C-alpha cells in the first residue's frame, strides 16, 4: 500500500494470453516520480502488449495497474488522467494543423476551455514547433511529427509519460532534440516509461531498465546492475598473423586472462578483467610469435547483457 502511494506507477502480475499463446506473463515493476524506466526487448517480447495494458487499451487477464494511487481497473478515468501515452505510430490527424491537433486533444481530455489556448502554446514551445503550428501535419518532417506526437501526450499534464518507440525513423538531430526534451521532463519530476530498440537511448535517459523476453521480465535494475549480471570482464578480439596456437598458449598464462579461445584460423578471443589496461601486456606476450594485425576491446555493456540474457541481439 505504501508503494502504491509513493510510486507513480505500480503494476503487478500482469498477464495476457491470446488463444493459449502467452504474450505477457507475470510482469511487474514500479516507477517513482521523476524516474525514467526503460523496457528493452526484441520484437514480440511483449513490450507493446504490456504498454497497452498499462494505458487501458487492453484488459489484463491477471494483475493490477495503479497510477498515482488510482487503480486502472476500478477508477480508469482518474488513472488515465495521470497518463500521457505516446503510441508508436503518429497518432494524429494529418489534415489538421499541429495547433488544431493539440487543441482537439485538449478539449477531448477535458481541459477547461479557458486553459486550452495557453496550454497548446506551452506544449508547442516545449516541442519546439511554435513556428510550424499552423501548417498541416502532413507537411511536417518525420522528426517534427514525432515531436508533436509526444506533445499531444503532454497536454493534460500527466504524471507518467509512456512512450512506445518514440524515435523510430527520425534523423539524429530530431532524436537528440526528443531525448533532450524527455530528460528535461524527467528533471522536472515527470515519471517516464520508455521502450526503444535503441539501446543507447535507453542507457542515456533511463534510471532503471527491465529486459523483457518471451513476455517476461528476465532482469531489472540500473544499467550498472544489469551489466554486472554478466561480470565486469572486457572482451579482446585479436587477429594474428603467425603461430597462432603458440601465441594462444602464451596468452592463457597471462595474468588477468580468464578465458582464451581461437575463434577462426587467425583470430583469438580473450576474456579479461580490466582487459583494456592489459592490452600492452597482451601485445608483448605474442611479440616474436605472431604479428597483431587487428585488435578490438569490447567493454561490458547493455548489449552484451542483453545478448547474454536473451540469446539474441535487440534488433533481431
Amino acid at each position, binding site marked *: 500500500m505504501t508503494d502504491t502511494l509513493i510510486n507513480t506507477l505500480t503494476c503487478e502480475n500482469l498477464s495476457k494470453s491470446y488463444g493459449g499463446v502467452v504474450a505477457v506473463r507475470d510482469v511487474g515493476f514500479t516507477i517513482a516520480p521523476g524516474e525514467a524506466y526503460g523496457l528493452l526487448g526484441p520484437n514480440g517480447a511483449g513490450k507493446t502488449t504490456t504498454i497497452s495494458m498499462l494505458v487501458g487499451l487492453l484488459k489484463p487477464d491477471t494483475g493490477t495497474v495503479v497510477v498515482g494511487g488510482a487503480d486502472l481497473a476500478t477508477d480508469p478515468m482518474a488513472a488515465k488522467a495521470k497518463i500521457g501515452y505516446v503510441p508508436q505510430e503518429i497518432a494524429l490527424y494529418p489534415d489538421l494543423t499541429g495547433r488544431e491537433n493539440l487543441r482537439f486533444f485538449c478539449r477531448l*481530455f477535458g481541459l477547461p476551455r479557458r486553459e486550452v489556448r495557453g496550454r497548446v502554446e506551452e506544449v508547442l514551445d516545449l516541442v519546439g514547433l511554435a513556428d510550424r503550428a499552423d501548417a498541416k501535419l502532413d507537411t511536417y518532417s518525420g522528426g517534427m511529427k514525432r515531436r508533436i506526437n509526444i506533445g499531444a501526450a503532454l497536454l493534460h499534464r500527466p504524471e507518467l509519460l509512456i512512450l512506445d518507440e518514440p524515435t523510430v525513423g527520425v534523423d539524429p538531430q530530431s532524436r537528440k532534440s526528443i531525448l533532450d526534451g524527455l530528460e528535461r521532463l524527467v528533471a522536472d519530476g515527470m515519471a517516464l516509461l520508455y521502450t526503444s530498440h535503441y539501446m543507447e537511448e535507453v542507457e542515456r535517459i533511463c534510471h532503471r531498465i527491465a529486459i523483457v523476453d518471451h513476455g517476461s521480465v528476465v532482469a531489472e535494475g540500473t544499467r550498472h546492475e544489469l551489466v554486472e549480471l554478466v561480470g565486469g570482464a572486457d572482451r579482446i578480439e585479436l587477429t594474428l598473423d603467425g603461430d597462432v596456437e603458440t601465441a594462444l598458449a602464451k596468452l592463457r598464462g597471462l595474468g588477468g586472462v580468464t578465458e582464451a579461445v581461437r575463434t577462426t584460423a587467425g583470430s583469438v578471443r580473450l576474456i579479461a578483467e580490466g582487459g583494456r589496461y592489459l592490452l600492452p601486456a597482451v601485445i608483448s606476450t605474442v611479440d616474436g610469435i605472431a604479428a597483431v594485425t587487428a585488435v578490438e576491446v569490447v567493454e561490458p555493456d547493455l548489449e552484451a547483457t542483453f545478448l547474454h540474457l536473451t540469446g539474441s541481439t535487440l534488433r533481431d
Partner: protein
Amino acid sequence: MLRSLLTVSALELRTRVRDRTALIIAIIVPVAMATLFGVALGGDDPPLRATVGMVDLDGGEFPAGVRREVMASTELDGVLTLRDLPSRERAQSALDAGDIGAAIIFPAGFSASVGAGEGGRVGVLTSADTPLAGVVANAVVDRISSLVRARTLAVRASLDAGVPAGEVKEFVERNGAAGPALTLDNDPMAGGRVDLSVYYGAGMAALFAFFVVGASFRSLLIERKQGTLDRMRAGPIHGWVPIAGKAVVGFALAMVSVCVTWASSVLIFGSTWGDPVAVFTLLLAHVLAATAITMLVASRARTDAQADGVIMVISFVAAFFGGSLVPLYTLPDVLQKIALFTPNAWTTTGLTGLAGSGAGPASVALPIGVLCAIAVAAFGLAATGFRKGLLG
C-alpha cells in the same frame, strides 16, 4: 463526458465539411435524386395507366360481373382500360405487340366451378415491358381470388348445412355472396394517383441513409488504423465516446439527407408525401435503424475497406428486398416475406401508405415500431461486437 462527445462529433463534422462529403451526401445527392425521379416519374398525369386484355372463355356470370365492376369502379376510372380478346393466343400476340399491358383469362367453366363450390383458376399474362399493367392485372385477380374463395366457402357451408345442390346458388346469392364486388381502394396503387417519384425518391433516400451513416463508421475504422482511436481511448474518456461521437454525426447527416430528399420532392415538384409529422417520424426511425445496422457492421469489421464492402452489400440487398429499387408488390410472395426483415420495406410501405392518404402518425405506428425494434437489436449486437473488438 458530453463535452468529449461533442468534441469528437465536431471534428467528424468538420472533416466531412472540409472534404465536402457532407455537402455532397446531405444536400447535392438528395436534391439530385428528388429532381431525377421527379422529372422521370412525377408530374400531374396519373403515372399508372394500363390496358388489360380480357379473355372470357367462360362466358358466364362471373367474368361478366368482373367486367361490370371494373367499369363501374371509380378507383379504376382512367387507370384501367379493358380490351376483350377471343383467345389466350390472341392475348399473347397483343401483349407481345404492346397493344395491351397484361391479360386476364377466365377459363371455360369457371363460373360453374365457382358456383359448385369447387373454386376456379384465373390466368394472368404479363410482360416485363409493362410491369405496372401486370401489377394492376394481378391486383384485380387477387380480388377475384378472394371473392372466389368466399363464394366457394359459402357454397360448401351451404351444402354441409343441408341445402339441396339445386338450390345452393340461389341460397348463397340471397344471403350476400352474390358475385364480384371489386373494391381496390385499400391498394396503394389502385388510386392511380400514387406519385412514383415519391415512391422511388423515398426508396433512394432509404438506401442512401445507409451510405451516409456508413461513412461515419468507416472513419472510425480509419482512426483505428491511424492510431488516433487508441490515443483517444488511452485518455480520460469513456471508451464509447469516439463511437457515439461518430454515430451522432452519421445520424444527423443521414437525417438531413432524407429530409432534403423529401423537401426537394415537395417543394420542387409539389409531390405529396403525406402527414409531415408521420413522414418525419418514419424517416427518423429508418435512419435510426440504418445507423444501428452500419454500427453493427463497423463493430465486426477488421478494416475500413471490409466495412465499406459489407455496408454496400447490406445496403443494396436491403434496398432490393425492401422495395427501394423495384416495387415491393412486383416481388414474389417469398421475397415479400423476406422483405419484412429489411428496414427499407417498412419505410417504403409506410411512406407509400402515407403518400396522399391524409393518414397521421398512428397509421405508421407498426412500421415505426418495427424499425425501432430493428435498431434496438442491431445496437445491442453492435455493443457486444465493440466490447469484444474495438473496446476489448
